[in-house]
């Protein structure tokens, strides 16, 4: 699925030259194969007969041995573009070089010629890559040789054109045009551009500042530099690097209260992520001795302090005055909060609904539901949740939804959505997971569900859905993990849009409709839903950032060209979805990704969930299992530095060593 990056992209002006002769011609639209003219006259331009008849002329001009394309503009244009269509399949992210010889006699220095690549979609065009601006006037051939970066792969459903843009009256001639993709290779004069410099990853600006200012900044006191670099490492989930930076900070600045005031929270995050709870306790003691106070430190003190015994009313206020939602919520789970303590907490109405739901769960299921449904309603859900009376140790097995308010958004007439489900040992959850997708208000869906060599009754459970014409069943003989199954089934999917659903999660009935509607309205190519994580007994999970509602990477929905351009998922057991999403986030324009900030999925937060599976687990405190950390850190490093510096072979080896690598294998249809 990787594109052939060795393919050079060379464009020449031979086609254009060969169709010109010494006589000027006047063109509108297509000139020859691949070349065309597009123009918008300036409103202030004259409209005399001569202008109407020959606003421009195009012909062959010879400068010594160099044949050039000559363009004479006889009037003023807002823009006049000579464009060549580029083959989208060859236009991939990376460093490029444009060479061009030109002559220009434009006098207006504010409106000099420029060269760029324009991306066109149905709605129009926008600049995809700026190559050269303000080409200065020159009476003799001037040779332009410019390096530039293309920040994102071209997409198959768009058209790309190399464009020489003029505007003011006068003559412009060019020849020797070539656009060449630089081959992989590291030339420290700037030809190799690591991805973080070419794309807009969340860490790009920080890392560029840090690297470019390193020599100077470190000579003048490394503290701020190291703290910022620690922030970059944490955002990349590179906890090996974060751990080293944390040790450096403690070793060099551990006794400095001001320094620890800056660095302390990030050091603590690192300790918690690596599961070094003793280290975290010791660090908190040291910080307390230094008098360092910070919300995250105070919150961690509550986490690590064990069960509170006795005492008066409990305050969950953090040093900033904000509420420690995470700490309070954990105490509600274990029924450790007194009613009057709950009453005295400064909830926001939004968060309060869930905190009360979790609190009231111990006393009354009806009250629990009322609060949870209040939360859903406040987030625009037309559905409320119901719980039936059948006994189950998983609340999602008892969940159903009732429509309380009119539906909005797309319900029919939209594109076919392929929903891919990978199920492994999910006999106790896959029924409700499948029903929740089959019960979607958006009807134009197909479901491709694969049993991933389960050892329980999952496959039999799935066969019960075979009668539904929207369901296509698959099975494999060897367990290969959800991401390999995604890659396989995307090849089988018929939908214009592709999304996923986990075999132990519940999608609210309007999930697909909400995501398709958001993409349609915004013209986006990717959408994500939000979710609430819920424990089997019904407790809703907050994370250490004090948030309940989180982006749901499992729900990512994209157009097929997005997968063709950025897929496939890596053949590993965990982390490939966040790796894929971060790639999209860095490389696609922001407008192409839309997040639906509504609770559209209830994700099971149980021991059987992938995120909770021993060996690759992650938890709400921030802990990441070693294999997950090792792989995610390296993937983050590769994402920003590129494959030349962090080769795929290294990631593959790390995945194998962490026992999270999975070999793709065949899936066969079970529909009979």
């Amino acid at each position, binding site marked *: 699925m990787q594109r052939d990056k060795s393919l050079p992209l060379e464009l020449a002006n031979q086609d254009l030259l060969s169709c010109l002769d010494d006589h000027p011609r006047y063109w509108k639209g297509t000139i020859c194969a691949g070349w065309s003219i597009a123009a918008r006259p300036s409103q202030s331009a004259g409209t005399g007969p001569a202008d109407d008849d020959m606003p421009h002329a195009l012909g062959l001009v010879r400068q010594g041995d160099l044949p050039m394309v000559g363009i004479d503009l006889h009037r003023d244009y807002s823009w006049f573009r000579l464009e060549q269509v580029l083959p989208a399949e060859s236009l991939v992210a990376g460093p490029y070089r444009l060479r061009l010889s030109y002559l220009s006699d434009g006098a207006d220095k504010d409106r000099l010629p420029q060269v760029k690549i324009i991306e066109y979609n149905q709605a129009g065009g926008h600049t995809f890559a700026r190559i050269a601006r303000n080409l200065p006037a020159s009476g003799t051939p001037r040779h332009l040789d410019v390096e530039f970066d293309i920040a994102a792969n071209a997409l198959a459903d768009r058209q790309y054109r190399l464009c020489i843009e003029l505007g003011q009256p006068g003559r412009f001639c060019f020849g020797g045009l070539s656009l060449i993709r630089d081959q992989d290779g590291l030339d420290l004069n700037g030809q190799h551009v*690591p991805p973080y410099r070419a794309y807009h990853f969340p860490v790009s600006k920080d890392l560029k500042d840090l690297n470019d200012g390193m*020599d100077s900044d470190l000579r003048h006191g490394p503290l701020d530099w190291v703290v910022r670099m620690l922030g970059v490492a944490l955002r990349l989930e590179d906890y090996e690097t974060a751990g080293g930076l944390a040790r*450096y900070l403690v070793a060099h600045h551990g006794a400095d209260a001001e320094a620890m005031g800056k660095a302390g929270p990030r050091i603590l995050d690192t300790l918690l992520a690596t599961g070094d709870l003793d280290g975290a306790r010791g660090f908190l003691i040291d910080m307390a001795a230094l008098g360092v106070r910070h919300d995250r430190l105070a919150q961690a003190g509550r986490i690590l302090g064990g069960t509170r015994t006795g005492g008066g009313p409990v305050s969950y206020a953090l040093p900033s005055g904000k509420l420690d939602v995470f700490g309070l919520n954990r105490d509600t789970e274990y029924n450790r909060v007194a009613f009057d303590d709950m009453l005295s907490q400064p909830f926001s109405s939004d968060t309060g609904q869930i905190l009360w739901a979790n609190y009231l769960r111990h006393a009354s299921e009806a009250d629990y539901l009322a609060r949870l449904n209040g939360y859903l309603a406040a987030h625009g859900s037309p559905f409320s949740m119901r719980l039936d009376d059948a006994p189950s140790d998983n609340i999602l097995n008892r969940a159903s939804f009732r429509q309380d308010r009119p539906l909005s958004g797309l319900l029919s007439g939209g594109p076919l959505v392929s929903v891919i489900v990978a199920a492994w040992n999910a006999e106790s959850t896959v029924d409700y997971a499948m029903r929740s997708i089959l019960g979607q208000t958006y009807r134009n869906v197909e479901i491709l569900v694969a049993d991933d060599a389960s050892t329980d009754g999952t496959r039999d459970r799935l066969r019960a859905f075979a009668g539904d014409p929207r369901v296509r069943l698959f099975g494999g003989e060897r367990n290969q993990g959800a991401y390999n199954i995604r890659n396989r089934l995307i090849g089988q999917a018929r939908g214009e849009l592709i999304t996923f659903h986990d075999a132990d999660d519940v999608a609210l009935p309007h999930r697909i409709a909400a995501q398709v509607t958001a993409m349609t309205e915004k013209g986006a190519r990717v959408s994500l839903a939000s979710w609430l994580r819920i424990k089997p007994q019904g407790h809703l999970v907050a994370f250490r950032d004090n948030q309940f509602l989180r982006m749901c990477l499992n729900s990512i929905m994209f157009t097929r060209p997005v997968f063709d351009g950025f897929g496939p998922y890596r053949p590993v057991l965990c982390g490939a979805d966040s790796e894929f999403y971060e790639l999209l986030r860095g490389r696609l324009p922001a407008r192409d990704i839309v997040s639906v900030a509504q609770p559209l999925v209830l994700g099971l937060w149980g021991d059987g969930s992938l995120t909770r599976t021993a060996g690759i687990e992650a938890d709400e405190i921030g802990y990441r299992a070693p294999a997950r950390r090792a792989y995610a850190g390296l993937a983050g*490093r590769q994402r920003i530095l590129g494959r030349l510096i962090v080769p795929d072979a290294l990631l593959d080896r790390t995945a194998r060593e962490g026992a999270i690598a999975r070999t793709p294998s065949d899936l066969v249809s079970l529909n009979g």
Partner: protein
Amino acid sequence: MRIANVATYPARQHTCLQALRSIAAQVDVLNVALNEYTDVPEAFRELDNATFHIPDRNLRDLGKFCFAAGDDDDVFLCDDDILYPADYVAWMMRLRAESPLTDPVLGVHGVTYSDYYDGRSRSGRLVHTFYLPLGAPVQMNQLGTGTIHVKGRQMPTFDYMDGSSGFVDIRFARHAHERGYPMICVARGRDWLTEVKNEETLYLSVTRNLPSQALQDVQHFGGLARLVRP
């Protein structure tokens, strides 16, 4: 025994002698790898304590790693374009003897990389250049192999270094990191060491064309995170 290792090649024949004299006078044995030579140049024969080796291929800067040393020998890795002050060897040995660190590698030219180094020469690196002053010793990721002092037992094998021609500093730093040898850039005054000017230096050709293997090596040991061990 005090041993100095250096590599040179014909284009440096007239400029390197001064450098070789400056270090030869301070050691028991000066090992010289003569890349691209067919015989020992007459001018070099004045170096009484020198042994010459003409490799069967151009080893470039790898040449200084093709000599044996005893475990307790004091080895100095040198360049053919640096003038070493008269107190260089004695001072470096004294610093090493007084160091509280276990198995330190001492050097005069040090580099610390960004934790996410992308290969640029003017970005993502803190460089303490050998001819500039440094007020206090600093632990760094990498030391230039033209100014290094180690014990013989700390030297990498030639096989380990082979393949790193053009980036031996990086490969040596990886070796030191893997063995847990802290690399210390020593304190000194301005121009304690000075450079013999040449038309073309290895440094230029190396830093302008750093191969991807070199950058992959840097990922193993580079960054402030790697300066403090767990």
